[in-house]
């Protein structure tokens, strides 16, 4: 039956969007962090979405074909800025600290996009549930 597969598909999307929201929260929380060398500086994380295909289903994804999963988290390639701050205990020998490459504006947009997609999928679940209940009602009375 197609209708109950919709719950799985929308559910996988809700899951993926929650993870995306989580990454955004983590990025925003780390926006102000500094570090002593370029390698250790915080890099913004991006969730990469991928369609769950029938042929590539993992065992725990049975019945979720057509849904979406987080393939992996990638680092934002934006360059790390360095700032002269000799008074900072984290500063390197030349007096520089390395800032996180988080752009607050991008993260806010990302957060809003994730919230909208989440709402859309909730709406799908609601409509489908109503229709399933009405279909069941035919049997009654």
């Amino acid at each position, binding site marked *: 039956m197609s209708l109950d597969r*919709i719950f799985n*598909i929308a559910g996988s*999307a809700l899951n993926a969007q929650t993870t995306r929201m989580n990454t955004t929260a983590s990025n925003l929380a780390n926006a102000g962090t500094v570090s002593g060398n370029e390698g250790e500086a915080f890099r913004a994380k991006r969730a990469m*979405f991928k369609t769950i295909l029938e042929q590539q289903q993992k065992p725990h994804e049975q019945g979720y074909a057509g849904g979406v999963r987080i393939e992996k988290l990638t680092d934002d390639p934006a360059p790390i800025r360095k700032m002269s701050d000799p008074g900072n205990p984290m500063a390197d020998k030349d007096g520089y600290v390395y800032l996180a490459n988080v752009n607050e504006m991008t993260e806010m947009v990302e957060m809003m996009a994730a919230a909208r997609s989440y709402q859309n999928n909730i709406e*799908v679940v609601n*409509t*489908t549930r109503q229709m399933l209940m009405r279909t069941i009602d035919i049997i009654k009375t």
Partner: protein
Amino acid sequence: MNMIDNALGVHAQALGLRSKRMEVLSRNIANADTPHFKAKDVDFASVLKQSREASLNTTNNLHLSIPMDENPGGEKYRVPFNASFDGNTVEMNVEQAKFGQVAADYQATLNILENRVSGIRRALRGD
């Protein structure tokens, strides 16, 4: 059993097809943010026509039966109104509109089925 099938007519198949189309649309909505995802839709009229046509009769084992369609689900790729940066062809507003439309279609088919079922029930009860 055949009598009940006849009474329900094409609407029983139509209901299945409509829920199938809803699944395809929900797949599009779920993948609205997936890069390179191509939105699909079901051509309702052609699939319904195909599901009603009987397949070619074979009177001998050596006869070849002609496959009805290489794409039995009848899913076709949608042509987007605007191109997008990441190759995704899901347009959320279009999908929402279509989803609402299919939900209404489903309820319409459901109403007809409800009437048929209550008719059969009345005939069986005899009142």
